């Protein structure tokens, strides 16, 4: 989550969920909080009962809006304009929390005079290289003093200090402009801006909550960045009742980011070695990824400990701890480019585990037709699903599909033990309740078994390419004899390895502070170090709640800190900003930080400690720099070079929009990635054939394959539907409850029409009305009691340049009454003829370079 990561230092929600109750105002935007996270929403309701104002900004009036104090409609995909408008309001009315901003953010840093803003380049920043379609970000930087430290003007007067750059950058985001871009009536926008300003400061705090409504855009990272800037300006980060709550989707989606199954990351947010970055040796890799100041000065300890965890005794200093075993990246290997590569024939084998791209993926037909070219597909799930049965889908001819398909029955959460990390970064261990039914096995069982089988198959190999498999430590037999007999590995042993241990005696380390870069320690994921601090303690299994931040309930990374950057809850001198918002403070007598949480700061570091330009790591920071992960210890209003598309967020229209960008000449994100191919057809940027905004979402009652077969849930929302406003319904002759067909250049789907006054056309500019159509993403055509088309068939693949996330929330479409035509089976042509396909090459197989950039 680099939107948060580049601003604050860590890519995780800054908030401990129950702390939302302490907010004085909560802005929910990019999230249908009540519907998507109903149980966490109880804290919002509690805050409301305590007098907090709840604001919901969303394209649709949802169940969240229903209980909010204030609802404002917005055109999907225009949140930067909306939040930018609030930033402009806060800056031009001097409503920011000046003491906080001056001390804890880089507002006073002086931006390089080579930097040219969007104001002067009609929506582009300095450094654009039209040939490579990318920015040279070197001008997005700060001026430095002679000792290498950053030049700062804490009086915030310098014309090129970040705050003044911000002022100028957002000056065109006026309430009139917000209304023109977002369709939000000015009076509502101003009310919200004022509510946030008046509920922030010393005495009050406001919290933001977002979810995939902000991220699944070609500008998704910058949405989150805008919110981060605003929350820093309002002084709400690191304080009780403040922060940014990233409401994540799946049960372990945070865990799967921390201990990533993501192509570009190693555990603990260490980058994956890349052939594109000259990281051929460990030395080079560490040079590239170790920072002089801030916490990332510790990178070598974490990398070496990880390699020791992977390759055990084989990993030695003299062989760079088997660093060379790690595969090297040659491009973007994320799911979308991989799907194209699969379609083009270079991917032969595919594991799909607990995910159903055949229904919930974008351009689901592309996904399915890509799987036709696989040699084999292995799927682990609980139920039949659209992915594993892709060869039976509507329009397919199974007799022409040569893919060998294996469905392995998975064990449900009740049938296995282990840990999941929830959205506030809290690890929670679950015990096993019952034996898996039938032949079902845990995923752990399957992975362990496959590893053992491959080790056996390669046992006699002398080929150096097979060394990683043979040297990989792979002993997770269960402590319990009966479990061992069933082949069930010990999740606890895996967790112990993740926590880390001293190589010499195998004893677990107490925390990441104990990790070393000399090979004496091993740790599978440094940020999780401390979860099992000794042989008998599993803090993820802690089940003591105490009504405060409940440090005994589960274990939060890092180091069990619940609210991140909580040093900022005290003023620079270490005293609480106010009695009402007291959280962590400096106890001058005991000379330590104390309060209601684990301090996210060196416990004994005096607030008066000066910064030292010559020091390494966080010793370079002063005692008043709360963002310890960052180079300068401060919150980043202006991000220098860490994101590829912008140091400051600028509003760009979605790839497929209904209007031209009112703010800049630049229509959409200049770096967004798209693939113009016959099997991935886009609507034009502004396309009169597709005049309506299409947005997608999920609903409370359904998730996907994990719910569609449960009759209790299926009866609550039994069929795919779309939500449209009454005006459009009348215009198109659509009756409530009837079937309609929604189409894009890519394809069409049918759904039942739910005509509701909750959907209202937006008024933009003079008399222009914009209709938005909403379609839930929970359904699939092939299986389940609840059935219907998925909007996956409508959405051509496109991608944000920072994190390769797809754009699925803001699209364009057409709609007509009646059902769609049936799909007829036929031959599937290769999208890219074989002759044109590179045999091998960076990116070529994986779309990044094959795909066109705009």
């Amino acid at each position, binding site marked *: 989550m680099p939107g948060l990561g580049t601003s604050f230092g860590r890519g995780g929600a800054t908030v401990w969920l129950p702390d939302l109750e302490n907010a004085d105002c909560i802005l929910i935007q990019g999230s249908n909080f009540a519907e998507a996270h109903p149980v966490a929403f109880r804290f919002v*309701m509690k805050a409301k009962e305590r007098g907090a104002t709840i604001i919901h900004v969303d394209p649709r009036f949802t169940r969240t809006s229903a209980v909010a104090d204030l609802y404002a409609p917005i055109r999907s995909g225009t949140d930067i304009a909306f939040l930018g408008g609030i930033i402009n309001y806060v800056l031009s009315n001097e409503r920011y929390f000046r003491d906080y901003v001056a001390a804890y953010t880089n507002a006073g840093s002086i931006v390089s005079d080579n930097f040219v803003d969007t104001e002067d380049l009609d929506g582009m920043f300095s450094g654009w290289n039209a040939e490579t379609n990318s920015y040279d970000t070197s001008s997005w930087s700060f001026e430095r003093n002679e000792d290498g430290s950053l030049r700062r003007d804490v009086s915030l007067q310098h014309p090129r200090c970040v705050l003044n750059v911000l002022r100028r950058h957002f000056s065109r985001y006026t309430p009139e402009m917000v209304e023109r871009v977002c369709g939000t009536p000015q009076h509502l926008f101003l009310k919200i801006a004022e509510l946030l300003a008046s509920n922030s400061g010393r005495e009050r705090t406001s919290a933001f909550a977002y979810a995939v409504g902000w991220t699944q855009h070609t500008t998704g990272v910058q949405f989150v960045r805008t919110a981060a800037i605003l929350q820093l300006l309002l002084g709400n980060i690191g304080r009780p009742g403040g922060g940014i709550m990233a409401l994540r989707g799946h049960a372990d989606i945070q865990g799967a980011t921390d201990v990533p199954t993501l192509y570009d990351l190693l555990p603990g947010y260490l980058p994956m070695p890349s052939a594109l970055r000259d990281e051929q040796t460990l030395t080079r890799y560490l040079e590239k990824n170790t920072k002089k100041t801030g916490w990332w000065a510790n990178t070598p300890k974490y990398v070496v400990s990880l390699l020791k965890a992977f390759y055990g005794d084989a990993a030695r200093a003299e062989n760079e701890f088997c660093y060379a075993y790690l595969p090297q990246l040659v491009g973007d290997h994320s799911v979308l480019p991989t799907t194209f590569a699969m379609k083009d024939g270079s991917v032969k084998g595919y594991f799909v585990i607990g995910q159903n791209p055949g229904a919930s993926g974008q351009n689901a037909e592309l996904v399915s037709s890509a799987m036709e070219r696989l040699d084999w597909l292995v799927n682990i799930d609980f139920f039949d699903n659209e992915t594993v049965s892709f060869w039976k889908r509507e329009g397919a001819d199974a007799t022409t599909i040569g893919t060998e398909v294996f469905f392995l029955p998975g064990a449900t959460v009740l049938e296995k033990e282990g840990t999941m990390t929830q959205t506030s970064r809290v690890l929670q261990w679950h015990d096993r309740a019952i034996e898996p039914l039938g032949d079902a096995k845990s995923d752990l069982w399957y992975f362990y078994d496959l590893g053992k089988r491959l080790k056996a198959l390669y046992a006699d190999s002398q080929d150096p390419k097979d060394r990683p498999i043979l040297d990989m430590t792979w002993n997770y037999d269960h402590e319990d004899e009966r479990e061992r007999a069933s082949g069930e590995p010990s999740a606890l042993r895996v967790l112990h390895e993740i926590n880390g241990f001293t190589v010499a005696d195998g004893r677990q380390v107490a925390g990441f502070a104990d990790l070393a870069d000399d090979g004496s320690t091993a740790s599978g994921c440094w940020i999780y170090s401390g979860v099992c601090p000794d042989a008998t303690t599993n803090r993820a299994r802690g089940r003591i709640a105490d009504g405060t931040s409940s440090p005994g309930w589960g274990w939060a990374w890092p180091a069990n800190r619940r609210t991140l950057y909580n040093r900022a809850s005290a003023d620079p001198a270490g005293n609480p900003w106010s009695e009402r918002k007291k959280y962590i403070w400096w106890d001058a007598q005991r000379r330590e930080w104390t309060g209601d949480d684990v301090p996210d700061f060196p416990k004994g570091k005096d607030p008066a400690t000066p910064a030292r330009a010559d020091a390494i790591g966080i010793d370079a920071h002063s005692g008043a720099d709360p963002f310890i992960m960052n180079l300068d210890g401060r919150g980043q209003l202006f991000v220098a070079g860490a994101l590829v598309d912008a140091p400051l967020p600028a509003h760009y229209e979605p790839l497929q929009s209904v209007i031209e960008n009112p703010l800049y000449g630049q229509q959409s994100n200049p770096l967004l990635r798209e693939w113009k191919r016959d099997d991935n057809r886009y609507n034009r940027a502004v396309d009169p054939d597709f005049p309506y905004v299409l947005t997608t979402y999920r609903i409370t009652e359904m998730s996907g394959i994990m719910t569609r077969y449960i009759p209790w849930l299926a*009866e609550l929302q039994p069929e795919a539907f779309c939500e449209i406003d009454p005006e459009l319904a009348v215009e198109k002759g659509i009756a409530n409850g009837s079937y309609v067909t929604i189409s894009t250049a890519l394809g069409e789907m049918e759904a039942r029409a739910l005509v509701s006054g909750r959907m209202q056309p937006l008024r933009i500019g003079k008399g222009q009305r914009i209709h938005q159509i909403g379609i839930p993403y929970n359904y699939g055509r092939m299986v389940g009691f609840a059935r219907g088309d998925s909007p996956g068939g409508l959405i051509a693949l496109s991608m944000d340049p920072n994190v390769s996330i797809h754009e699925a929330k803001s699209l364009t479409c057409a709609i007509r009454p009646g059902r769609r035509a049936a799909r007829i089976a036929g031959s599937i042509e290769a999208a890219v003829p074989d002759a044109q396909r590179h045999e091998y090459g960076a990116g070529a197989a994986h779309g990044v370079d094959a795909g066109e950039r705009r």
Partner: protein
Amino acid sequence: MATGFFTDSTLCIGCKACEVACKQWNELPSDGFEFTGNSYDNTSQLSGTTWRHVDFVERESVDAEGIATSWSMLSDVCKHCTHAGCLEACPTGAIIRNEFGSVFVQPDICNGCGYCVVSCPFGVIDLIEAVGRGDDAAKYSVATLHDDRLNERKTAVQATGGVAGKCTLCYDRQRVGMVPACAKACPTESIQFGEIDDLRERAKRRVETLQARGVDARLYGADDVGGGIGALNAFFLLTDSPEAYNLPAEPVLPSTRQAMGYAAAAFAALTLATIGWAIFRGEGGAA
């Protein structure tokens, strides 16, 4: 000690956890998979197998600032009336008032006559007429039941031609000191369970709080609803008239009509007997 529910529509987010938690605990089947187009309500009503049901009331009003939308949700349930039509009607004594003051259907006694169904002024109780599984009985699919429990349910329901079903206020859970499944699940505590006197007090305070905030809050069933029914052990806080939530504004306890009915029948019988006497045994008749 009487217990009950206070269901507060202003705290409801319409998530329907109550419906599912109830079905899971009471092992009830689904009522079918039909899209209604009525807001987010696809279960439509309380039934013999749906004992909690969430109403979705969409309203639009136009004010100076444009169109104002509101969406009020309420989890409906058996009211457990002080004087319950179903209980009075039940000819077998299957429906009893238990030690918690709740109206409880004893499925082992119920003979499925259906008289309770038409005797409920709130349209709550209904017959469970079939339980099945799989495609042949998708409407009543209980795909989640263990075989033995499914068979038990089949014996109890299908073979007997139906039994009456409605909320038990989780009598079985209350017996061991547990909170009813719906109230426990409810994420926002819109459904509150407790001793009825406490709940009424809480409800009245809540109404005052909301009214002070300018919310058009009103209680339904906290006090006597009239018609001889008395107060409801499951009562509600509404922000609209009862009809908007499919609740009767003026419910009446059916048994209050019995005296008049018997009198009318007696009148007719006596009249006919007199005429008959005259015809058969009177002067003319005997002649």
